[in-house]
């Protein structure tokens, strides 16, 4: 009420001000009237241009890759190398997760899906190309005195039955278990290869990428987790399982059992640019670099040996 009467009281004052500004107002109003129209026309033209240039399968030089965050970093490197060779090509690599990658390929939002888990029954209509094998490393903080665990011990730790490092002849500290989230390929592989029918403890800390698990383990002296062997660095320590240290050699020989395939998924037999990129990844040039990155080249592992996955 108060302010209302105040407003009317100032009518004269305001009216004066308005006329004073009226020229400026006129200019403003031209802007407000047509500004959006102009902007929209520009945007419209722009969208149209983009549409014709960039929708899938219209002769563009772009490959969209999406999926597993475990494979993403490696694919990024491969893509960079590929793009160095052919500057016209753009390869967009993004995470999103194995399932999102699978779905993206099916729905044609991506050309290549990355999966670090094998396909489920209803996903089998996609074409799988194994581009590398990856070991799964059990990691602890570098200061941890534990160097070797049996599969049974690892199982008990992750099931929440062994909760103190003391039992494993280390310091008297509660174990912090760090795992990946439900649905992740890494967790799926760990569940099947190590846990079997046992559940991973509900009390475990859950993070959504290998990088985060590594980061947490590298900061917490009492923690234990599992990540891709390729991502192990000097800030964490990969421990031996049943006396075998995880290495390319041990995995190739079949002594270290925790491994899984890295899959490229495509809708149909790749052609053109897509084929070039996949061939490039499978070529000796890339495959011979894999061991440096902690991965195992496809050819080193005969297709039918190694770990058999249980049907879900």
């Amino acid at each position, binding site marked *: 009420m108060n302010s209302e009467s105040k407003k009317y009281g100032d009518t004269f004052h305001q009216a004066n001000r308005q006329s004073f500004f009226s020229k400026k107002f006129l200019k403003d109003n031209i802007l407000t009237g047509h500004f959006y129209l102009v902007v929209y026309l520009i945007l419209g033209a722009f969208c149209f241009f983009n549409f014709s240039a960039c929708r899938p399968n219209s002769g563009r030089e772009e490959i969209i890759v999406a999926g597993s965050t475990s494979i993403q970093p490696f694919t990024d490197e491969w893509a960079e190398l590929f793009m160095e060779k052919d500057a016209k090509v753009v390869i967009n690599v993004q995470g999103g997760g194995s399932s999102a990658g699978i779905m993206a390929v099916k729905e044609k939002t991506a050309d290549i899906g990355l999966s670090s888990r094998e396909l489920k029954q209803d996903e089998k209509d996609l074409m799988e190309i194994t581009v590398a094998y990856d070991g799964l490393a059990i990691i602890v903080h570098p200061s941890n005195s534990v160097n070797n665990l049996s599969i049974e011990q690892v199982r008990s730790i992750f099931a929440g039955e062994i909760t103190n490092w003391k039992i494993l002849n280390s310091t008297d500290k509660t174990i912090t278990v760090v795992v990946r989230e*439900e*649905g992740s390929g890494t967790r799926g592989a760990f569940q099947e290869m190590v846990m079997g029918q046992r559940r991973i403890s*509900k009390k475990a*800390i859950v993070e*959504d990428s290998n990088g985060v698990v590594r980061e947490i383990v590298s900061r917490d002296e009492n923690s234990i987790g599992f990540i891709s062997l390729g991502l192990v660095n000097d800030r964490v320590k990969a421990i031996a399982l049943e006396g075998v240290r995880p290495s390319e050699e041990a995995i190739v020989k079949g002594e270290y059992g925790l491994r899984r395939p890295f899959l490229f998924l495509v809708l149909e037999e790749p052609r053109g640019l897509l084929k070039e990129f996949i061939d490039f990844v499978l070529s000796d040039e890339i495959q011979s670099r894999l061991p440096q990155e902690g991965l195992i080249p496809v050819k080193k592992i005969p297709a039918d040996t190694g770990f058999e996955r249980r049907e879900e």
Partner: protein
Amino acid sequence: MARPKANDRLIRISLLVVALSAISILAIITIFIFEQGLPIMAKYGLKNFLLGQDWFPSEKSFGLLPMIVGSLLVTLGALLIGVPLGLASAIFLTEFSTRRVSRILKPVIELLSGIPSVVYGFLGLMFLVPFIRETFGGPGLSVLSASIILGIMILPTIISISIDSIRAVPDSYREGSMALGATKWQTVRMVVLPAARSGLVAGIILGMGRAIGETMAVIMVAGNAADLPGSLLAPVRTLTSNIALEMAYASGEHRQALFATGVILFVIIMILNFLANLTARKQSRK
């Protein structure tokens, strides 16, 4: 210009269409989230979702109780930290400090309200989590860290809204009370705060909404274990982080269950909105 009347009607109608955008968007969002989330809730039973304690999507077990409790616990913790500090700061800056101090500090606090939540989460991860791990034990990623980070995050919101509503109390109230011989604090406690009450409550509810809806900052510091937290130092997972953590890899029923998580979050937020509206309306009636 030729037919201003007809033009005006056209304009009115198109503006109405535009004006209905917000409510239509709300409707679309509701429909989409419910459409994706309800079937699975119906299939496995609402009770199993709300009261089940086991979240093992691969075994078709979708208990959301730990996350519901987690969200409420972390939000409550955030309020326990944010509200006293926020109200105290607002009272101090409006009633007990010199004009110059409040004139400098209020904008500073408001500037800080725009800092992205990921920044709060990151600093929590860098400083708070190691601190809690070393002083109190446990993994550090915990209910406590999440509460503190969220409490700090909602501080600027609570402070600036509280300052506004305390300032809106007419000076005549204060003068009247002081004239009766009340001290400044008595005036604040018995006159100013009650008069500003609904504004303060609205601010707190807004902060609460922000805390319960926050995702990224919480994921970074809460540890995300899908278990009822046994202590303040145990890791916890909220409804929001349940969605963000698992969305990427989820498929089939697992994904639907995440939408069901969204449905429950949505309902909780709507209840909060309703309460906020109620208090706001009370205030405008005054």
